[in-house]
């Protein structure tokens, strides 16, 4: 098991009010698995990711990320669009994690160049993020995470702010880089199509308290394309099932 979570619970307490963001999350994710987490807004999925990313502490419960024994960071996160640091160039952003870990210069150079080329930004290496489109910024963010060569990758709705065309292109690029490295990925999304295209397994969350109450295995062979996903009958069933779940959750939280 690459990631294991045991009774992970997070409560936010403020001015006499407490909100249970996550309750008793028990979850195991296999090495090399691509897992998507879907749930209504405010269901605690970002909180779960932030706990794994070391940005938030669980109130109770534990989690572990298995190390492969090599000199690797446990996890790296692909943030939403604003996560690219504006005062660093494209290249400096991509090499950020490696430099923070004081990796030897030659390796930093080599890996940065490799992933810049992978995401097609080698010509833009010396530009600042202000000169990039939203899609290019997200490529920087993805390259930064992969270049850091972590045990697992965490992605927090990385494509949410992109337009449809760019979203498709980046999803396929992500899959192609991922298939090369076979990293374990935990990916948050609002988009059912996105989850169906990317995942080995989809986890559905309920809101307040956030729990994982359903999981769907996606057995469709890879490489997949959005056309395959859209035209496949089983996938259509999955789509309806997830859609119904989300509807129920949103309705439930309204009453």
């Amino acid at each position, binding site marked *: 098991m690459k990631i294991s979570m045991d009774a992970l619970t997070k409560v936010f307490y403020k001015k006499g009010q407490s909100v249970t963001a996550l309750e008793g999350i028990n979850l195991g994710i296999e090495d090399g698995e691509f897992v998507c987490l879907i749930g209504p807004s405010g269901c605690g999925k970002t909180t779960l990711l932030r706990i794994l990313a070391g940005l938030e502490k669980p109130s109770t419960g534990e989690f572990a990320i298995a190390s492969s024994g090599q000199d690797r960071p446990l996890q790296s996160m692909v943030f939403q669009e604003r996560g690219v640091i504006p005062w*660093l160039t494209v290249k400096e952003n991509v090499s950020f994690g490696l430099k*923070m870990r004081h990796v030897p210069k030659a390796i930093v150079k080599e890996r940065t160049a490799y992933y810049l080329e992978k995401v097609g930004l080698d010509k833009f290496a010396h530009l600042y993020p202000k000169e990039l489109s939203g899609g290019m910024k997200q490529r920087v963010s993805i390259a930064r995470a992969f270049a850091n060569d972590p045990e697992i990758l965490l992605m927090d709705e990385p494509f949410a702010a992109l337009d449809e065309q760019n979203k498709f292109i980046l999803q396929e690029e992500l899959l192609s880089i991922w298939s090369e490295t076979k990293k374990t990925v935990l990916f948050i999304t609002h988009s059912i199509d996105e989850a169906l295209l990317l995942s080995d397994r989809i986890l559905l969350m309920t809101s307040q308290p956030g729990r994982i109450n359903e999981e769907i295995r996606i057995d469709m062979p890879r490489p997949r394309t959005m056309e395959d996903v859209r035209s496949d009958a089983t996938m259509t069933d999955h789509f309806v099932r997830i859609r119904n779940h989300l509807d129920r959750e949103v309705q439930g939280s309204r009453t």
Partner: protein
Amino acid sequence: MKELKHDPHAVEQEEWKKRQWKERGKQLLTIASPVFILLLWEVVSRTGIVDARFFPPPTEIVGTFVSMSASGELFHHIGISLVRIFAGFLLGVIPAIVIGLFMGLYSPIRHFFSPLIMALMPIPTLALLPIILIIFGVGEVSKIVTIAGSVFFPVVINTVAGVVNIDRIYLDVATNYGADSKNFFFKIALPGALPVMLEGIQMGQAIALLTIVAAEMMGANSGIGYLIWTSYKAFLLPEMFVGLVLISFFGYLFSLLLRGLQSKLLPWR
């Protein structure tokens, strides 16, 4: 002509030309205002509408400037004032940046220092000049310290605000990618706070000029402030105006230099 009207490229070219003219007009207006004031001043002073003894015409001030520079006396005053300004400026700005970054990054340090800064800031450094003179004597050090003291506050306050207002997500990125405290300081806090910090430095620069003049009026025997003050007391008003114009010139020059520095230091903006 009619044919031309139907050519969209020609129409847009015409529009573009009109916009260019408007831009040039705006530039002209910027130059026009000081020229207009100077001309007006010249006329009212020459015609005796205002007393030329108190408001000597600009041409006379220029003449005085030329003869003062010829004697070399003027450059002595300018040189001394500039040295004081630069030394005082650096002595104020550097600690302000360091303390400001620490205050911005570490909230215990911020909570410890901010009441001191808030309480000291409203006191004009010039009001402390007698105490500064007692401690540092009547030499150069007391002037430099006076300037440093007044430059310090806007810079420290803007630096803290700059760090505190850095978008949280960049701090999260740095944490997630394992930045140590040195990298937090130099890769995140310093560059992230720089735009707001430079605004503070710009303010500090203006304050430094205000302060140097006043400080030299009180405890000095050289410098532009001294020149203004002694000329005034001796009723040498053209000489006094030369001093005032110099201050205004250097204020403008420093602003331009800092703006230039700003675009050099913030290529990512």
